């Protein structure tokens, strides 16, 4: 099995520099750079946190503290398709919680778990600012609004 090297390429390092230049203090680049890592590896493991700490002259504990504070950063790999199903009030009123349960049963995973083949991960999400399109979920970055509860199976199967 090939081992992943947790670092950025030359190209990506240029992007890091661009982020650093946006703020009067290097520390402010922490979240944008963590985003780069999360998108690239689908998670931010310890070696990557250490690498970023080094890159931005921060302590490892600071980076770790930030990663654990924000729900969109994950220390465990997320699925190829990360499903965030909103179950907050407006979505719940339109059966968002049922959709979450259906997907959970179908994929046989619970909140913040990943399917054994690594294809799907599931998150019971808070309001994502798409309440007029309730019920909704995000598949990776894309919002899917006005979900039809009878078509959830199809939607999930179409991703596989």
């Amino acid at each position, binding site marked *: 099995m090939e081992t992943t090297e947790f670092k950025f390429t030359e190209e990506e390092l240029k992007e890091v520099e661009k982020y650093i230049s*946006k*703020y*009067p*203090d290097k*520390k*402010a*680049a*922490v*979240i*944008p750079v*963590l*985003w780069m890592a999360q998108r690239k590896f689908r998670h931010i493991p310890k070696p990557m946190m250490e690498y970023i700490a080094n890159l931005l002259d*921060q302590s490892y504990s*600071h980076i770790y*503290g*930030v990663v654990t*504070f*924000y*729900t*969109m*950063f994950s220390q465990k790999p997320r699925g190829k398709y990360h499903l*965030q199903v909103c*179950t*907050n*009030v*407006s979505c*719940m*009123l*339109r059966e968002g919680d049922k959709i979450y349960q259906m997907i959970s049963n179908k994929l046989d995973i619970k909140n913040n778990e990943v399917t054994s083949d690594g294809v799907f991960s599931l998150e019971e*999400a*808070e*309001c*994502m*600012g*798409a*309440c*007029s*399109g*309730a019920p909704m979920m*995000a598949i990776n*970055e*894309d*919002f899917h609004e006005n979900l039809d509860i009878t078509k959830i199976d199809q939607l999930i199967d179409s991703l596989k």
Partner: protein
Amino acid sequence: MMEKNPKLLLPEIKDLHKIEVFEQNGGYQQARKAMKMEKSEIIDIVKKSNLRGRGGACFPTGLKWSFMPDGIDKPNYLAVNGDEAEPGSFKDRRIFEFNPHLLLEGILIAGKAMNLKAAYIYIRGEYYLWNKLMQAAVDEAYEFGYFGEKMKEKFGTDFQMDVYVHSGAGAYICGEETSLMNSLEGGRGYPRYKPPFPAQVGLWGMPTTVNNVETIATIPKIFEIGPEAYSSLGAQGHPGTLLYGVSGHVNKPGVYELETGITLRSLIYVVCGGIPGGKNIKAVIPGGSSMPVLSADEIDVAMDEESLKKIGTHIGTGGVMVMDEDTDLLKVTLRIAHFYHHESCGQCTPCREGCGWLEKTLKRIYNGDGTSKDLDLLVSVCNNIEGNTICALGDAAAWAVRGFVNKFRSDFEKRVKAKRIFQAPNIAHAKRATADTLIYES
């Protein structure tokens, strides 16, 4: 006379997000005007318009800007709050998508008024697409010379500022202004004690103003139509147009730009086409999940801060959540409590523990194991959170839960065992660690 309900922020103009189209429709003209004005002149116009912040607290914007110190040699910053994580709010997203240059024009005017070095537009992490759209608009604006070095040439003044888009990473609390600043600085989003207020010690220790996206986007329109005309729109104490976001049980959910002061009834029945299946209303949250809920007989209220305040709630973010007669309000309250428990940053004990208690107690009632004493416990916990925390998240949780329990007490009574056990809730408080067992035992 202006037409009724003018579409100031979201006019129906195709491709308005493109800078050429925006310019053709008079875009950036107000910024040009402002560049030739004195700082105090600009702030006076904003004050005269009576614009109140759209982020939830309704603070007068002109007054807020006037707190920024004058004549000191420090960089000043503006943080534009696009965290938009209040459940039931989805309006700022429309501005990023359909009228991003209006926001940028507002930033320029704010920039001149407060002598800003830079503005940071903080957009929640979930809005990945809208982050990109906003960034694209910023790139266009730089290209056209509205920001950065080219500004001097474009506007023929000495003033120069920058604007950046910054993405959050999933934390409701980062919408709170001081938490937002900590998050922008690259840390955990812990709210800060006030004082010092951001206008004295803000981003990187410098004077900072935090304003909501909609607030800033409104500024150029005030300059365009004049502060008097603006202040005569809608309700007197809280004038202008508002982006109402209506969701839940209505036939036509969506974002509607209307004057303040429209009755909640016409918003629901006329604008949003009523309730699916012709059902009756059970409850309505008027301004995002933090604001106390209203019952069906209260919907003749006018939707502006002053009118809502009179009946014990607030306009908040203008996020209206409608619940029909078949809604299980206990389930809704439980979901709301879960939200605040999940999102509490954990710095203050009353909020961290209290929100946990609210959720646990509601869960117990929901599972059929509650007694009517639990309802008193809920109210007591709310009372103990409110006013005892660093930021207003604790208050929000307390307002929301207490609002439901008090207003719909009879509904909740039906779900608990009638047995009433008289045990002062503060006994439970004293034995915090065993509170759960205490209640179960009784």
